[in-house]
């Protein structure tokens, strides 16, 4: 559940939290694109380091670290699969560049997790929905999206309660071989799914009794407007993209192996 914790929004007032979610999203996408464009350690490290000021400005270091810790397992997995394949490609020899390549791929994944984590940690589901709505996504979709995001922690908590209830009836989740362990989760999953469905039906009724979809054009209590900080971030985003494309086209990026060996 630690991955979810790392994505859970908490209300804090910081310059990053106040930014317009649309611009923040464009920024995350730019980082995403840049991370995909480069496959070597140096530029990816630069991308990684560039996010750190945001993390500290937003004062979400602890949750952010937790999300990275949650991604650790996948990161290790990515490192080893890449390492093994480049090992096979290189003709079954271990060379420094293999390790560097695997490390770069892992770092790329970490950069993606890092930027998405900052985005979700600093953007409330409400603002996110509003951003979608103002980007002319039909309200049905933006509502479904925000509701889904909002219910993740609720479901996680419910899963914990269900596990407790079944443990109290003698269920031992960690017992048995691999297949048995998977089967052990049936008594947890069924109540979880049933109660999620029940909850969604109740939510639908509650919404309809509060005039959901009564008018074509909904109005909002708060609108989204761009402020100075948003334009600054937009500038940074553009700069990242321009620099990334420039470096990609005209600057040969050395690998660490070439630099030091």
């Amino acid at each position: 559940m630690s991955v979810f914790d790392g994505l859970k929004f908490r209300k804090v007032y910081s310059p990053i939290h106040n930014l317009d979610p649309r611009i923040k999203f464009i920024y995350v996408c730019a980082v995403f694109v840049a991370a995909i464009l480069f496959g070597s350690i140096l530029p990816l490290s630069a991308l990684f380091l560039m996010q750190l000021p945001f993390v500290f400005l937003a004062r979400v270091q602890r949750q952010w670290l937790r999300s990275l810790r949650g991604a650790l397992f996948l990161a290790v997995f990515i490192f080893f699969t890449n390492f093994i394949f480049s090992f096979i490609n290189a003709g079954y020899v271990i060379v420094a560049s293999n390790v560097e390549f695997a490390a770069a791929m892992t770092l790329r994944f970490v950069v993606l997790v890092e930027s998405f984590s900052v985005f979700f940690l600093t953007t409330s589901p409400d603002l996110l929905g509003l951003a979608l709505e103002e980007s002319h996504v039909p309200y049905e979709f933006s509502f479904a999206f925000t509701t889904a995001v909002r219910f993740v922690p609720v479901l996680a908590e419910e899963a914990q309660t269900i596990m407790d209830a079944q443990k109290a009836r003698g269920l031992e989740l960690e017992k048995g071989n691999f297949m048995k362990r998977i089967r052990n989760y049936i008594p947890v999953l069924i109540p979880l799914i049933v109660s999620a469905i029940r909850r969604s039906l109740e939510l639908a009724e509650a919404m309809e009794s509060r005039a959901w979809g009564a008018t074509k054009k909904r109005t909002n209590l708060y609108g989204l407007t761009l402020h100075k900080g948003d334009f600054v971030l937009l500038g940074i985003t553009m700069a990242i993209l321009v620099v990334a494309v420039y470096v990609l086209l005209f600057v040969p990026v050395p690998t660490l192996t070439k630099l030091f060996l």
Partner: protein
Amino acid sequence: MIVVEGVRFTYSGGVEALRDVSLTVKDGEFVAIMGQNGAGKTTLVKHFNGLLKPSKGTVRIDGVETTKTSIAKLSRTVGFVFQNPDHQLFSETVEEEIAFALKNFGFEEEVIQKQITWALNLLSLTQYRKTSPFMLSGGERKRVALASVLAWDPQILIMDEPTIGQDHEQKEKLRQFIVQLQAQEKTVVIVTHDVEFVAECNPRVVLMKEGKIVADGKGKDILTNIEALAQSSIVLPQIAQIFTQLAPLGLSRNVIDIYEAKDILLQAWEKRRT
């Protein structure tokens, strides 16, 4: 016997839910733990079967420290019925639902059948033996959840909010049922907000507030103690309210039982007539 000594518990989020709680529940005792939301009631009882382990202090069940054994082993002695039955029902039939725990504990097939029949009968669910638990009403599902725990006949029974969603008749049945368990020397601990139910049962009452025990004693004394109850945002049971208002007439205020109330009022009335 449940012995809680100097227990503190902090959730991973940093919320301190129990602050130095000590409590002993003897065999065969009936205890109601009351207090407002967030007082730490459920957190406390989750320590009794090891679902939560104290951050500081010890919890011992029949002399065994909960940190030194498994939840499964403790559950054999401590049955825990959760507040929301939907958090545990998953089987295709009520029968299988009840068999789940019995299988986990490794009971023989014959014993399982016998215990299912016994538990269904006890909670008047026999007619639903082959029904899907999801087809039942809220109150019935609650009884299935209770039956699925009672089936292995635990020595200690913990119920979190057992009266929620139950009509008056079912509550009365639950009360009689607890009396029956008492006759068998079983320990019963309930967590509840239901003042009237507690007044009818008149168990030992433990009052909690902000992770601490603020009052502990006979139901009759705690439920008529206006100051203690006000602290925990609990209102007096109706009978106690009447007797509080009648206090100027010189009647005892320490009444929560209907029959006792009737006798006192009758006496007072007789006295006035003569």
